[in-house]
């Protein structure tokens, strides 16, 4: 699914990354805990979060996450936007809650970037 389709599906605003709307995204990860993202999210996924601080952008950058969808209409600071521009992370913004955002994207075919965790996950460090 293209980033532009995700935008349309969730009536989202493109805050950063107008030039990257053709990026193809197939997986997603929803979380408000950045340690959770750092632990489990995979490169190339869409990060769906209600956190809109610079640390969310830096987390996305650390993992080569394709884009961030800020949900729940959380207000964005200039600092957040500035860092997203600097690090080249596209930002979409929607008023939908995380449940609705994940639900709609799942219905349209996005999959989780991990299906499940199990005992071996902890030992697997190939990402």
């Amino acid at each position, binding site marked *: 699914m293209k980033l532009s389709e995700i935008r349309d599906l969730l009536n989202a605003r493109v805050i950063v990354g107008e030039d990257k709307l053709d990026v193809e995204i197939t997986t997603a990860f929803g979380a408000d*805990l*950045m340690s959770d993202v*750092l632990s489990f999210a995979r*490169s190339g996924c869409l990060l769906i979060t209600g956190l809109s601080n610079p640390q969310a952008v830096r987390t996305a950058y*650390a993992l080569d996450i394709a884009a961030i969808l800020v949900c729940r209409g959380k207000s964005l600071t200039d600092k957040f936007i500035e860092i997203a521009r600097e690090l080249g992370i596209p930002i979409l913004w929607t008023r939908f809650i995380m449940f609705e955002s994940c639900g709609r994207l799942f219905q349209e075919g996005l999959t989780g970037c991990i299906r499940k965790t199990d005992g071996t996950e902890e030992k697997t460090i190939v*990402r």
Partner: protein
Amino acid sequence: MSGDDLSESLEGIYHIQGRDFVDAGIVSSEVKKSLQGKGIPESIIRRIAVITFEAEINIISYAQQGTIQLFIEPDAVIIEANDMGPGIADIDLALQEGYSTADDSIRELGFGAGMGLCNIRKFSDIFELTSEVGQGTHLKSIVKLNG
């Protein structure tokens, strides 16, 4: 291993001020940038960026100040984090997933859920943690470059 002379492979040293939450994560971003273009696989760089991020958050959350040093050896990247902080009384307990002494200012950043040290251990090939109460904490993480 701490006796090895690493000075020749020092890639960068980053100073971190405790309780300075605004720029939390910036060292991770800087480390990642500095590792790019050196022929290190992207997946390895991601692991190092995660380790650095969590180590940085720990220093900011708990210590007055600290440093993160990055070393690039022919066969491994080494991340060392040293802080002047309260130290960890019970390391086994601190390494239990979900155990946390974080306050709200840390939780608001999306950290402090008791996953940080576990994440560092998870993404390290070799992980060493030593601490002295009232003095500080020393963390060493080695990520091998070939398997």
